[in-house]
């Protein structure tokens, strides 16, 4: 599908003047941005800038203090959102007593399964073949992250909200995340990912939303200049071009 088609439809996710404050202390915002199908957008900010909070607000777990979120052009409710979003948060959502496969089977039962994929193929897709029957407790932090990514991969949703998907991963894992994101964007999905550093991207920089604590973060210093423009302009199609450093197998 040509990428210009993505933008004739209403944006998958839109935020207008979105702000969140906890006990009157502003955490982020007001923010304006739009996320279209086929796009991957990186939310950038230092520790405590409100990246995770932003994702929790967008996932519907937290109610925004002010502003509006629109999903496919309609106001967001949890009932409308939950069949369309997969959240990877700091906590893995995995049970340490269960094996990787049991965890994925449970996720499949709870959220449903994307067509053409099964818990076994999702596990293989994140490079964990042979670990199906290992209790999650015995996996390393990076392997747990991979199982959690397999859960996201399995869910039949269009919108991925990934909080620090690169944390704990080795170089191979970082390439894996980029590949998963690229495939997801290519089949018409969209993803918002957070990162406190741009170490994961060696080339083909995606659109960025810089976040600074308690500010709207205007005048972004990162050059992509997409913060308050609602996703208009030429860097849109950069979303699909997360490049993975190809090379060694």
């Amino acid at each position, binding site marked *: 599908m040509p990428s210009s088609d993505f933008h004739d439809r209403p944006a998958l996710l839109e935020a207008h003047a979105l702000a969140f404050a906890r006990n009157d202390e502003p955490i982020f915002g007001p923010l304006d941005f739009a996320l279209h199908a086929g796009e991957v957008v990186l939310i950038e900010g230092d520790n405590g800038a409100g990246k995770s909070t932003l994702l929790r607000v967008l996932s519907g777990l937290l109610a925004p203090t002010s502003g509006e979120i629109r999903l496919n052009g309609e106001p967001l409710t949890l009932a409308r959102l939950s069949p369309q979003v997969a959240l990877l948060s700091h906590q893995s959502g995995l*049970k340490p007593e269960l094996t990787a496969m049991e965890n994925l089977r449970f996720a499949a039962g709870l959220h*449903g399964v994307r067509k053409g994929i099964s818990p076994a193929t999702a596990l293989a897709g994140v490079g964990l073949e042979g670990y199906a029957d290992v209790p999650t407790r015995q996996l390393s932090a990076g392997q747990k992250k991979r199982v959690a990514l397999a859960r996201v991969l399995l869910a039949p949703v269009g919108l991925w909200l990934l909080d620090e998907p690169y944390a704990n991963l080795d170089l191979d894992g970082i390439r894996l995340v980029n590949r998963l994101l690229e495939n997801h964007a290519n089949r018409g999905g969209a993803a918002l990912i957070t990162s406190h550093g741009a170490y994961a991207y060696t080339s083909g920089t995606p659109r960025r939303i810089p976040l600074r604590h308690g500010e709207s973060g205007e005048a972004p210093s990162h050059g992509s200049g997409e913060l308050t423009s609602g996703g208009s302009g030429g860097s849109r199609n950069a979303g699909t071009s997360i490049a993975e450093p190809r090379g060694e197998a």
Partner: protein
Amino acid sequence: MKPGSTSAACAALIRRDLTLVWRRRGDALNPILFALIVVSLFPLALGPEPENLRRIAAGVVFVALLLAGLLALDTLFRSDYEDGSLEQLVLSPHPLSLLLACKIAVHWLTTALPLILIAPLLGELLHIAEPVRWVLPVALLLATPLLSLLGAVCVALTVGMHRSGMLVALLVLPLYVPVLIFGAGACNAAQSGLPFLAPLLWLGAAFVLALVLAPLACAAALRISLS
């Protein structure tokens, strides 16, 4: 891209929770041991006269089981909250109250039902009177699911707090007291040869009411706790 069915989600949740209980089966014995210890201490403290013990038997068993249930209550959402599964549950496309009802049912099945099964044994330790012998399990069968449902709402409200044990006890006890009064009341009435059906029916009515309302309240409370 459509989500799976709600019944499949409930089945997956029930299967997962039962597997988890089986993997942690050592912990599942704690409430039983607690109740056994409490009940077996009474004859030591009060003396072994069967007459004395028979008078208090039903009440003691009831209180011991109620406190053992309170001990197990904290495990209902704690680990799910800590590892993030609760978030995933809230984000699932299925009605949260229904999923929580499944969770509470499994919790009751694995913590309260074993206690009810050993209740006759506990009663014998205290020389329980003949007519109370079968009224007690019936009262417990009606009272313990009610306690689980009421307790779940209070635990859901406090799951986001650290060291919430004392707070849960304070929130839960006023709700537990009427259940205790009706349950133990039915046993006492049976012991004195009085009609005992009315308190049992009250327990049944409250159970049905809680079965409908508590999961909804629980879902609302959890959404608040997670935000």
